[in-house]
C-alpha cells in the first residue's frame, strides 16, 4: 500500500491540472526536445547494436570512433532530457509523485549506478555508514535525478585517484545528504550563479550543459527541501536537506 500524492509545484491557479502552463515555457524548446528523443534513441540503439558485434566484428581501429559517437549521442540525449525538465519547471507545471522514500536506499542505488563512471576515472566513491532507514517524503525518481547530478559532478571534477564522499544524517526534523569532492573547487565568479540556467565553468574539459543544478534546485525545493553548497579548492560540498516522513506506509 502506498501513499502517493501528486503535487503540482507552483500551480497557483489550477490551470496546470488542465494542461495549460501557468507561465510561458518555451514552446519551441519543448517541441524540439521531445522530437529529439526518438531519433536519439534510434541512434543510440543502432550504435549499441554495432558495438555488441552481433552484426559482425568491429575492426579495432573503429572502436574509438564508435565510442566517440556514443558519448556524443548520450550527451545530446541528456541535454534533450534536461531541456524538457527545465521547460516543465519554468512553466510551473512540475508534477511530483510524493511518497515515503528511504534515503539510504536511494543513495546506495545512485552510487551503484555510477560505479562504472567512477571506476573508469579512478575515483573512489565512499558512502558513510547509515545504520538505519532514513525516510523522507519525496518523489523518488526526481530525487534520484538530483543525487545522480551531484554525484556525477563530484566525480567529474575529481582528480584520478580522488575520493567522493556521500553522507546521510538525521538533522532535527530533516535528513541531510552531503556530497563532497576534493577537486579544484567552483570558481569564485561562478559561485553566485551556480544554480542558474546555463551556469557552467569555462573549462572546456568538463563537459556539461549548465542545466543540472538549476533543475536539481527546483526539484529539491518542490519537495520542501533546500540545497546549498560550499566550495574552495580541495573541498566542495553540496548539501540537500529534506523533511523527514513520519507516516508508516
Amino acid at each position, binding site marked *: 500500500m502506498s501513499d502517493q500524492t*501528486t503535487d503540482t509545484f507552483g500551480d497557483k491557479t489550477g490551470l496546470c491540472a488542465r494542461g495549460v502552463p501557468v507561465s510561458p515555457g518555451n514552446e519551441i524548446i519543448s517541441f524540439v526536445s521531445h522530437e529529439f*528523443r*526518438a531519433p*536519439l*534513441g*534510434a541512434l*543510440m*540503439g*543502432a550504435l*549499441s*547494436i554495432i558495438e*555488441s558485434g*552481433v*552484426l559482425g566484428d568491429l575492426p579495432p581501429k573503429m572502436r574509438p570512433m564508435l565510442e566517440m559517437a556514443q558519448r556524443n549521442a548520450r550527451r545530446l540525449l541528456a541535454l534533450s532530457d534536461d531541456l524538457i525538465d527545465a521547460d516543465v519547471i519554468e512553466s510551473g507545471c512540475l508534477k511530483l*509523485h510524493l511518497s515515503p522514500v528511504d534515503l539510504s536506499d536511494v543513495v546506495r542505488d545512485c552510487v551503484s549506478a555510477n560505479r562504472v563512471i567512477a571506476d573508469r576515472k579512478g575515483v573512489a566513491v565512499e558512502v558513510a555508514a547509515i545504520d538505519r532507514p532514513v525516510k523522507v517524503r519525496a518523489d523518488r525518481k526526481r530525487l534520484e535525478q538530483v543525487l545522480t547530478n551531484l554525484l556525477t559532478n563530484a566525480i567529474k571534477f575529481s582528480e584520478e585517484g580522488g575520493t567522493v564522499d556521500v553522507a546521510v544524517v538525521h538533522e532535527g526534523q530533516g535528513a541531510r545528504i552531503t556530497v563532497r569532492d576534493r577537486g579544484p573547487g567552483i570558481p569564485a565568479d561562478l559561485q553566485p550563479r551556480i544554480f542558474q540556467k546555463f551556469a557552467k565553468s569555462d573549462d572546456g574539459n568538463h563537459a556539461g550543459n549548465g542545466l543540472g543544478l538549476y533543475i536539481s534546485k527546483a526539484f529539491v525545493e518542490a519537495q520542501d527541501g533546500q540545497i546549498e553548497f560550499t566550495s574552495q579548492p580541495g573541498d566542495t560540498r553540496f548539501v540537500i536537506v529534506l523533511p523527514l516522513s513520519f507516516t508508516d506506509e
Partner: protein
Amino acid sequence: MLEIALATVGGFDLQFCASGEQALGAIPEFAPDLVILDVKMPGLNGPETLDGLRKRSNGSDCPVIFLTAVAQPEILESLGGVGAAAIVTKPFDPMTLADTVREFLDR
C-alpha cells in the same frame, strides 16, 4: 531495430503485423508465446487490440507487452491496468530487450 533486438540478439522467431487488426488475424495461426504491441496505432490501438485478443477463444491468454513512447507516469499506470504483462518505454535498449522478453516468457 526491433527485429535485430529480438531476432538477431534474442534468437526469437518473429512475425510483424502492420496493424492491430492484422495482428488479431495472424495470432491464431502463428500461435505466439508473446505479443508485443505498440500503443498508438491507426485503427485499433494497443489496448483495443489486447481487448480483442482476450475476447477470442484461442491465443487469449498469451502475455502481451506494450511498447510506448509515452513517459508520463499517470498514462503508464493506466496502461498497466489494462492487462498487459509489462510496458516497455521507447526508446528501448536493443541489447537488453530480448532479456526483458525472456523474463516474461520464463514466468
